[in-house]
């Protein structure tokens, strides 16, 4: 097809479009859908019996806030990354809260070492964390994927990795509201480990989830069908 003809067909077949809201609004929308679901899962799984007491545990509160902040900032970065011309500094938003989250857990490990010696860093299986974080993050993940597909696939893998980090962070926040596992080494390995794995998997899936060829293929089909 000649370019002039292509332009003519694009104009003829175009219609009004709903502009994508700014990343901050889209993040708020995503949270508005995700938080009630997370609350429902926590309710069904039964909140941990010592939750009120844990609210006075500084390390627990810091880690929970950091996990939630990582989820929110990663979502903001993901939604920004699908807007052409976006400020690339948005991509760094999750770094500070993630550093606080990781740092707090690492500090907890060091404190356990000094307090209990090698016993303070004993590790045992806690496979429950993986499916539990997936359960808590499932609806937020699906919602995130659907919302990301409306944008431009400028950096597919990075975008979906950020989306994965957002949902995994939120998932971990919810998990610790009903799963009474607070040993720093256990949280670091099993819970944060799950977050890493889910983020990496989401990034790997980016090339299939967000693809220019799928988008332009749809446009081509729409302008050739009469």
């Amino acid at each position, binding site marked *: 097809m000649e*370019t002039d003809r292509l*332009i003519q067909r694009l104009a003829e077949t175009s219609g009004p*479009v709903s502009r994508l809201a700014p990343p901050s609004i889209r993040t708020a929308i995503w949270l508005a859908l995700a938080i009630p679901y997370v609350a429902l899962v926590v309710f069904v799984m039964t909140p941990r019996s010592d939750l009120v007491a844990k609210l006075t545990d500084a390390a627990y509160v810091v880690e929970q806030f950091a996990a939630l902040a990582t989820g929110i900032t990663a979502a903001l970065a993901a939604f920004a990354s*699908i807007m*052409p011309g976006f400020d690339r500094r948005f991509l760094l938003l999750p770094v500070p809260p993630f550093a606080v989250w990781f740092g707090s857990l690492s500090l907890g490990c060091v404190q356990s070492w000094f307090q209990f010696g090698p016993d303070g860093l004993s590790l045992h299986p806690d496979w429950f964390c993986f499916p539990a974080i997936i359960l808590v993050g499932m609806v937020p993940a699906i919602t995130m994927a659907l919302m990301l597909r409306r944008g431009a696939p400028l950096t597919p893998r990075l975008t979906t990795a950020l989306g994965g980090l957002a949902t995994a962070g939120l998932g971990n926040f919810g998990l610790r509201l009903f799963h009474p596992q607070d040993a720093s080494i256990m949280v670091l390995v099993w819970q944060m480990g799950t977050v890493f794995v889910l983020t990496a998997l989401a990034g790997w899936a980016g090339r299939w989830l967000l693809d220019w060829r799928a988008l332009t293929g749809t446009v*081509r089909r729409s302008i050739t069908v009469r």
Partner: protein
Amino acid sequence: MDNRALEMLMQAAQSGDTRAYAQLLNEITPRLRQIIQNQRRFLQPADIEDLVQEVLLSLHAVRATYDPQRPFKPWLFAIARNRLADGARHYARHAAHELQVEDLTVTFSDQVANIDAEAYGDPEALKRAIQELPRGQREAIEMLKLRELSLKEAAAASGTSVGALKVSVHRAMARLRKVVNG
């Protein structure tokens, strides 16, 4: 046309104004073509035009992402840069796996491609020689020479690329020529 005018056209296009959209696309196309020509000097004009069209299709696909509060050109150039980089990755992947054999002789009209049938004297010998070819070369000969499919049709039927088909038939002809000439 200045930035403000382009922004207004894009805003109108997002609202469904098809004339404004056509005007916008006609306005930006020469600039896109120039940018792509500068960035990809090694490309043929047809390939440059393909890239221009890819950028236009991409812009159309994601036109909802333009924020009227922000300038239009950075938005447009971000899409163009991304599609150019994507095109370069796609080109590199295919160049690594394909041999450029544009000047290989694969048509009946080219003398080099033709086996002199009289030199055989034995059609059965030719048939046996074809059967003894490696599978890929045999299939290429059968599709292109015996069934007279076009390169595109044969590529679609066999699931291989046009370039790979040309290589296969070239090698097959070379082997058959050796058999014919003893």
